[in-house]
């Protein structure tokens, strides 16, 4: 961006926390699940009761290694867990088991729109519980009381720390979105930001374009969606440039993104500055994955989003935007591929999937895996459109019904008598009847300028379609209408 005294460049690094999709928590056998009654998924270990001890869940390590193999990370021979000490009521032990100086993964990279973003490290740590402040506006300092739900305490997290390689809010969003797709494709995380299984902190600084010196960085917390990430980074970049332009300087601090106000605000220094007194966690032994284990994990890697997008574009002849939308949700891409496997052409399937089906998934929040219309049902719908049985608008209605209840498209067509009419004699009679009924409009069409003709034709076409109760084949109707108006 440009200030009054010349161009500036934003330098952005992201810390992305993802909850790992394990069956049980990181150090105990409690279920790793979202949405249960408060404090029902707990045991002495994840409650940090005196005498309890952590035992590392092997699945946590395997998921991290899988992620590492996919993004070209180096896996050090050993990594260790440390204790991060600070008092907070949502932390049962008043320390968090995390990796500090020796993380499990170092030096990875992710390609985002042709640019390579370096990833400094990814490390494992346990999640905290959740505090609900009751009364007084929901903030800790004026709440009447605070309740803690420890169901989330001990859920495994991976923190993925990028290098400061990102240069704009858009690029930051693209990076997270690609990272999300990768994590989902690998089955490493559910990456549901709304359930808190993916959380982002951003480190933002600005400098004169062309400079190689880093500016003072500010950490931004509390961004709950890709949209708020983009807004927060944009706001912060502008704020810093304005500060520098006004002859001021940026203070190194942690700022809180205020979603409603659309601004970043300094956090209370007490919350922001801690001496965590890290030291090696004596209750756990160093983590040293064997070569066999690494080999096993690497051998089982699924296709990554970038490769999948390229393949779908090639095989289905679809554009990058559609490929990105499809692959952005693994469930949707899997669904589409299954429909194609059932015989439907890729382009048509992609069209339905990125349109009506995606909207339906977004509105209802369900996964494509549980849609009442199975992928071969979508293939059936595509075939009904392809052979002219259904018009596109009618097909939409049929799809809507099939997404509401478990019915096959053919069944809906039969029940509602929806099959498209293409019979020229039948449709010709209807067109004639409409033109007779609207003689004045026909006159206006014939004597009008281009604009009027276009409008009148649209009206007449609509009336024809209405007269067939939407079942008339639009191509045939259109041709018959034009023949008669000519």
């Amino acid at each position, binding site marked *: 961006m440009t200030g009054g005294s010349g161009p500036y460049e934003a330098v952005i690094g992201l810390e992305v926390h993802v909850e790992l999709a394990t069956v049980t928590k990181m150090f105990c056998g409690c279920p790793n699940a979202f949405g249960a009654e408060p404090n029902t998924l707990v045991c*002495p270990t994840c*409650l*940090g*009761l*005196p*005498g*309890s*001890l*952590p*035992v*590392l869940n092997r699945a946590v390590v395997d998921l991290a290694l899988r992620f590492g193999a996919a993004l070209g990370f180096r896996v050090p021979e050993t990594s260790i867990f440390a*204790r991060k*000490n600070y*008092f907070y*009521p949502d932390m*049962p*032990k*008043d*320390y968090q088991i995390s990796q500090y100086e020796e993380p499990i993964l170092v030096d990875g990279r992710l390609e985002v729109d042709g640019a390579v973003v370096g990833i400094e490290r990814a490390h494992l740590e346990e999640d905290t519980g959740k505090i609900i402040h009751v009364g007084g506006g929901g903030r*800790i*300092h004026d709440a009447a009381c*605070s309740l*803690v739900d420890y169901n989330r305490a001990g859920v495994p997290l991976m923190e993925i720390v990028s290098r400061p390689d990102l240069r704009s809010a858009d690029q930051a969003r693209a990076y997270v979105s690609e990272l999300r797709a990768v994590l989902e494709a690998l089955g490493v995380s559910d990456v549901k930001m709304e359930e808190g299984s993916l959380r982002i902190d951003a480190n933002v600084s600005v400098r004169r374009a062309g400079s190689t010196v880093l500016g003072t960085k500010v950490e931004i917390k509390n961004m709950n969606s890709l949209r708020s990430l983009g807004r927060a980074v944009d706001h912060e970049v502008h704020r810093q440039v304005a500060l520098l332009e006004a002859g001021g300087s940026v203070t190194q601090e942690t700022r809180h993104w205020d979603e409603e106000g659309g601004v970043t605000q300094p956090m209370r220094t007490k919350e922001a500055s801690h*001496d965590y*007194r*890290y*030291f090696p966690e*004596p*209750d*756990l*032994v160093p983590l040293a994955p064997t070569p066999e284990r690494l080999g096993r994990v690497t051998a089982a890697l699924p296709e990554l989003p970038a490769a999948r997008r390229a393949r779908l574009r090639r095989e289905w002849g679809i554009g990058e935007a559609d490929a990105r939308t499809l692959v952005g949700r693994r469930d949707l891409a899997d669904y589409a591929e299954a429909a194609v496997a059932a015989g439907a052409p890729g382009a048509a399937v992609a069209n339905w999937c990125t349109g009506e089906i995606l909207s339906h998934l977004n509105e209802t929040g369900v996964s494509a895996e549980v849609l009442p219309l199975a992928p071969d049902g979508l293939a059936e719908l595509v075939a009904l459109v392809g052979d002219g049985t259904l018009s596109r608008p009618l097909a939409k209605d049929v799809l809507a019904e099939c997404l509401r209840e478990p019915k096959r498209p053919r069944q809906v067509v039969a029940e509602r008598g929806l099959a498209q009419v293409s019979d020229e004699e039948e449709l010709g009679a209807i067109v004639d009847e409409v033109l007779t009924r609207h003689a004045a409009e026909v006159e206006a069409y014939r004597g009008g300028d281009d604009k009027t003709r276009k409008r009148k034709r649209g009206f007449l076409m609509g009336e024809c379609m209405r007269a067939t109760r939407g079942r008339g084949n639009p191509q045939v109707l259109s041709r018959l209408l034009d023949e008669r108006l000519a």
Partner: protein
Amino acid sequence: MSGPGVAEIAASVRNGGRTARDVVEEHLARIASRDPELGSFLCVTAEAARARADEIDDLVGRGRDPGPLAGVPVALKDNLCTRGVPTTCASRILEGWRPPYDATVVERLLLAGAVPVGKTNLDEFAMGSSTENSAFGPTRNPLDPSRVPGGSSGGSAAAVAAGLVPVALGSDTGGSVRQPASLCGVVGVKPTYGRVSRFGLVAFASSLDQIGPITRTVDDAALALEAIWGHDPRDATSVPGRPEPLGADGEPGGPVPAEVAGLRMGIIEELTTMEGVAPSVRRAVTDAAAALEHAGAKVDTAAVPHARHALSAYYLIAPAEASSNLARYDGVRYGLRVDAPSTEEMNARTRAAGFGPEVKRRIMLGTYALSAGYYDAYYGRAQRVRTLLIRDFDAAYGCFDVLLAPTSPTVAFPLGSRTDDVLAMYGSDRCTIPSNLAGHPAVSVPWGRGEDDLPVGVQVLAPALGEAVMFRVAKVIEEAAP
């Protein structure tokens, strides 16, 4: 003064010679008559013990074997979690807390047929060497009630020495099993780190803590250790695999063979000649060594140079870990809470009211040692000393099978005599700390009487997982002791 031992009780209950109920009643009666003076128990679970004894008798009656510790009354240091039974760590901060689970060692004792009779006193959170740091009052030494029993497992050692129970479990972070055993004239074992599961032991210093038995004989200690040791998947630092039994020909439950012929033994020079070691203690070590030599061992002097710095390293590492382990006592979830307008203030007031002075001192010391800017100079350096000490031991074990040293530098001291002198109190553990830092096993065995006719202990140290040879040496010392 002392009643029947572990082996004797288990044998008579198993063969129906005596009922477990009878054994328990006898011990409960001893506790009732003697413990008001000693204060070794914080809680006696008489009803649960009777019920458990009846279960054992029922098993025997139906021809079933209740296990190697059938009907043996056992006392548990009150930092071992017991389901539904208060576990206080002798601290106000845990008053009223009842664990929802049993420690692994408690589960295993029950499985072996033992009958827990109560929880014993300790220095608060096992921090101390005299059991005077208990929030619920001190324990007295049964051999001279004006003296301390040592600590921090003073309640367990006193209870065994007074014959209130044949066996008690303690925990040993810097000598807390061996030193009180020595001061009370009984046997105390600290196993190899990881040999006995720490699951359910309320942590003081996690990299040093280890649970061990206190008994009146070496054979009894072996029986008790065999009941509680072995791999536990709930403790990530637990040693994998099954330990070699301690009896003759590798049999479990059998008496430990008194065989040391051909073994090479080194007396740790630095610990035996150090200033502050009482003449009787020094003499006990050399006399015991002579007895071992007489039994066929080869004895020489061994050098463990960094043993001199072990105490300083320990008083950085242990408090550092403790400062973190004890953070969870914040008034939020269990135990004491002193209310205040803000969470931070509630945390602070709760901890100020709940912890005693020694615990606070160590939390502050440990917090400081881990602080940014001081970490390398304190915690980091202490860990380097630990590494060097382990190298010293490795070198020594290249020449020797076991090492010998004093357990406590002195005999039991009078109550109150060291409470105002922190360094003198800390010095009580100088000879025991090196084994904790190295993670090696060690045992204290009584060797006659010293100053004021009070018991003296001799310590046998062995390399990691060297319990079998260590017990054989201990057995010879026990048989030769005056």
